């Protein structure tokens, strides 16, 4: 197979190969790497520009498009760059062996070996520190910019509203953030904070700032790093599955994504910062990998680091290190060995710790909407929780359909040509509709925080506008949470919430996918939290007015605290997020790290499971898989089972009507013939067979290696001309007296290509590709080489399969 090119093996057996005269190419173990670097067009100065994120190789997209335009041209579309056949073993192993051998000799080498062993952990530490620090900075800046839309702090422009009034004694119980140091734009410009004019000025300034932020964000993205837009999780999933998107995890992407994420969040658009934070963490990891030789040169190892970085991203986004690790395991990663589990956890912890010591929210918590519930729940409440799950599932399925449809429109119509205008229009729309409703005016995280809050006596928000019950005895310590009838304030809040729900549902569909950094978690959770809170308040009032009905009698006696609307909001948030992303375990863990209460595992699990089942009934893909498919990334979904009974022979190239496979014979071909063959095709590798008749497979050789070797030999080796024989065998036949000396190229042949037989069922082949991370595999029949099968072929086949497949058991996870 291609992709079999295996430096580990080669250097393992290099002792027997090195001293043969014609073995000019593989002179050094590391030489191969350098050739690759050169071939990848990376110069020595590469540290200052955007390095290829994962080793060398072309732009993935470039390849993809070229491949698309030439499909059907030949058997193996070997368009993917070089890779270890099994994620990250050989090269690293050799380094170990070398180090182990050396260290027997000296103590210095021992130290070296220890530091080498620790470098992985050190890298994780650095990734954690950097991501944590960046996340802290993003939080602080986003808060400040968001409040900037409303006013300015007079005692120090760098304070946001809350910090401006931090030590003020003039805050009141009703309006906790009002203090003279903070002035709204109306106060600054017109001197008054009341009246229609002030409202209008504030409204206008809100809009102007929002538009400015959005404009800045989209312009910066367009000018410096177009890859910085979007959520980033679909692309990172694709990268972790083994493909390369050059520049996607580079320095410029990191800078621009960090900067514009703040702007996008602050502009009031309905988006969150969680997905982009994952991208940011992966950029950090990729950049830091350059500091360590071990990771700079080994793609597979780097991919493990990226898996860990995804965990770090979620860890800082939600302050949930364990949830982050599970997210990376469940949602993002393709290959997740135990080593990565440990390291991810370590990095996630370091990041969370860093973020906590920065303390961006001033509450010693990692997230704005941290809550600490301890209210009990009753089994009967599982009913409404499951209802919320159904709502979440329905909304998830609907959202995915609508968003994908909208993105398809953007992709295919003229809409896609005006990204800046689109962003500005959506921002203006959002701002105009959001400002009048206080629940949409505030940021997403703030809204969620408000909705999760259970109304203790200390709260004075509109959502807690209950009529005071007459039994406010001073002795009833902490009993103020008992059920109360809703007051006017609460009814008003409910109306606003209902409107906010509709608005959020609409606007999120067209927001996600715009050309600014945009995460999906916060808007999804906000929708769910609003729905949950509405249901929770409804249940509460139902219980209050029906104390004696059959369902409430047992546990909802008057004066008892039986229903917590905040818990409903939390469950709703989990359900909606689950419906959109199809996470389950990691989501539950994230939610319970947010609340610090293990009591709610069952409600959360019931809701997320229901949500997943319901959503799966309408379409098995989560939003990230849907976007992957929309963009046509070459991604082999590891979760989905392949349900088709075709054989490998049906999928491999060449098909029956195609010309035969281009192969090299192990001897008998001249340099000219080889060059002609290579020139006449576009494949990136060629199988080597014993002879054209027998077609018995010897190995596989890469186009690039072949070209460079011949080139080198022509330049440096004496006597190599066009008529020289190319010999891939170990012992070449004695040349005729007058013939030029043969060119020996066994060194560049991968002698252990992967093979399957043509009778192998496709599902087993797909499984082999997934588990071994292959790009290509050769197909044999009775020991004869028959064809080649690549990941692209499989994807194409699965896409066809997908359309024909009956969709009947969505509940079968």
């Amino acid at each position, binding site marked *: 197979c291609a992709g079999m090119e295996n430096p580990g093996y080669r250097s393992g057996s290099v002792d027997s190969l090195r001293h043969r005269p014609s073995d000019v190419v593989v002179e050094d173990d590391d030489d191969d790497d350098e050739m690759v670097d050169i*071939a*990848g*067009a990376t*110069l*020595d100065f590469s540290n200052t*520009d*955007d390095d290829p994120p994962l080793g060398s190789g072309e732009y993935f*997209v*470039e390849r993809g*498009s070229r491949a698309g335009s030439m499909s059907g041209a030949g058997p193996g579309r070997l368009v993917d760059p070089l890779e270890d056949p099994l994620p990250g073993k050989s090269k690293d192993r050799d380094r170990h062996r070398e180090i182990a051998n050396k260290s027997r000799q000296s103590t210095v080498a021992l130290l070296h070996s220890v530091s080498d062993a620790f470098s992985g952990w050190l890298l994780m530490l650095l990734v954690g520190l950097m991501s944590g620090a960046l996340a*802290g*900075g993003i939080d*602080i*800046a986003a808060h*400040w910019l968001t409040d900037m839309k409303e006013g300015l702090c007079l005692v*120090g*422009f*760098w*304070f946001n509203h809350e*910090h401006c009034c*931090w*030590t*003020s*004694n003039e*805050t*009141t*119980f*009703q309006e*906790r953030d009002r203090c003279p140091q903070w002035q709204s734009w109306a106060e600054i410009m017109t001197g008054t904070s009341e009246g229609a004019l002030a409202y209008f000025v504030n409204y206008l300034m809100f809009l102007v700032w929002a538009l400015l932020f959005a404009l*800045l964000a989209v312009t*910066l993205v*367009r*000018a*410096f*790093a*177009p*890859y910085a837009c*979007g959520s980033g999780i679909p*692309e990172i999933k694709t990268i972790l599955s083994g493909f390369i998107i050059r*520049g996607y995890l580079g320095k*410029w992407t990191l800078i*621009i994504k960090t*900067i514009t994420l703040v702007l996008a969040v602050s502009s009031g658009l309905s988006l969150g910062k969680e997905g982009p934070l994952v991208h940011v963490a992966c950029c950090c990891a990729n950049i830091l990998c350059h500091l360590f030789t071990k990771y700079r040169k080994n793609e597979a190892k780097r991919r493990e680091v990226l898996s860990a970085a995804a965990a770090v991203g979620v860890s800082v986004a939600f302050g949930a290190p364990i949830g982050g690790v599970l997210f990376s395991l469940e949602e993002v990663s393709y290959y997740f060995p135990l080593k990565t589990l440990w390291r991810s956890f370590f990095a996630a912890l370091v990041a969370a710790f860093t973020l906590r010591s*920065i*303390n961006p929210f*001033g509450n*010693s918590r990692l997230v704005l909407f941290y809550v600490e519930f301890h209210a009990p729940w009753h089994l009967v409440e599982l009913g409404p929780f499951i209802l919320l799950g159904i709502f979440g599932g329905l909304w998830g399925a609907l959202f995915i359909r609508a968003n994908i449809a909208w993105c398809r429109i953007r*992709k295919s119509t003229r809409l*896609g040509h005006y*990204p800046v205008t689109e962003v500005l229009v959506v921002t203006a729309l959002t701002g105009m509709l959001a400002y009048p409703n206080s629940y949409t005016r505030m940021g997403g995280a703030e809204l969620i925080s408000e909705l999760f809050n259970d109304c203790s*006596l*200390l709260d*004075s928000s509109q959502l807690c506008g209950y009529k005071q019950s007459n039994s406010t005895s*001073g002795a009833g*310590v902490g009993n*103020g949470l008992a059920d109360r009838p809703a007051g006017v304030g609460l009814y008003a809040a409910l109306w606003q919430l209902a409107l906010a729900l509709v608005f959020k549902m609409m606007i999120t569909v067209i927001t996600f996918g715009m*050309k600014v950094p945009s995460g999906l978690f916060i808007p999804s959770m906000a929708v769910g939290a609003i729905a949950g809170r509405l249901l929770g308040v409804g249940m509460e009032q139902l219980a209050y007015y029906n104390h004696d009905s059959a369902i409430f009698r047992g546990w909802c006696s008057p004066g008892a605290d039986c229903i917590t609307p905040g818990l409903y909001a939390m469950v709703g948030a989990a359900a909606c997020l689950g419906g959109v992303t199809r996470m389950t375990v990691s989501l539950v863990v994230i939610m319970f790290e947010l609340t610090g209460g293990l009591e709610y595992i069952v409600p959360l699990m019931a809701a997320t499971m229901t949500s997943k089942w319901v959503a799966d009934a309408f379409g098995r893909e989560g939003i990230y898989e849907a976007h992957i498919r929309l*963009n*046509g990334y070459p991604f082999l979904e590891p979760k989905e089972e392949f349900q088709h009974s075709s054989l490998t022979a049906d999928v491999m190239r060449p098909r029956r009507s195609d010309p035969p496979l281009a192969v090299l014979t192990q001897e008998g071909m001249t340099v000219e013939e080889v060059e002609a063959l290579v020139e006449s095709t576009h494949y990136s590798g060629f199988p080597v067979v014993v002879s054209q008749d027998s077609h018995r497979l010897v190995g596989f050789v890469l186009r*690039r290696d072949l070209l460079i070797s011949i080139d080198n030999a022509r330049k440096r080796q004496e006597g190599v001309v066009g008529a020289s024989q190319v010999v891939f065998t170990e012992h070449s036949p004695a040349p005729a007296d007058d013939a030029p000396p043969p060119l020996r190229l066994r060194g560049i042949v991968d002698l252990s290509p992967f093979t399957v037989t043509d009778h192998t069922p496709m599902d087993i082949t797909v499984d082999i590709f997934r588990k071994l991370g292959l790009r290509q595999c050769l197909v044999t029949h009775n020991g004869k080489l028959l064809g080649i099968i690549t990941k692209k072929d499989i994807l194409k086949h699965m896409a066809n399969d997908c359309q024909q497949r009956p969709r009947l058991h969505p509940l079968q996870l």
Partner: protein
Amino acid sequence: AKNFEDVRCKCICPPYRNITGHIYNRNVSQKDCNCLHVVEPMPVPGHDVEAYCLLCECKYEERSSNTIKVTIIIYLSVVGALLLYMLFLLLVDPLIRKHDAYTQPLHNEEDSEEMRPPVDSAAAKANTVLERVEGAQQRWKKQVQEQRKTVFDRHKMLS
């Protein structure tokens, strides 16, 4: 700024009998952060203090205003620098290097990767630092152009 110290003890006292809710803020150490020290003047007579204080919730909070200040300033300066650089690239740069604008795109699009690099690397090694920076910038610009084409024009990614 003296007014913005970095610790506070914030006590929230809910409505009690006929007293409305109140928020008290004081600059005290963590040890002293309790109702008796912070709530001043006490709105209830002596025998009610304990009951009133039971209802109040006092939280000790810390922040670092320096971190905030530094973060905001760094953020603003990075945004400013980027804007300036963008303007530079948009307005000034095209004027300076009008001459080599024609050859570059061709070179970028058609060359196959295998052939070009050795030349580049050989060339790069011989040059001065300034020229290297120049080269790197050129390559970066080409990359961005490529990305822009992919994302905004061809909609092959991130749409």
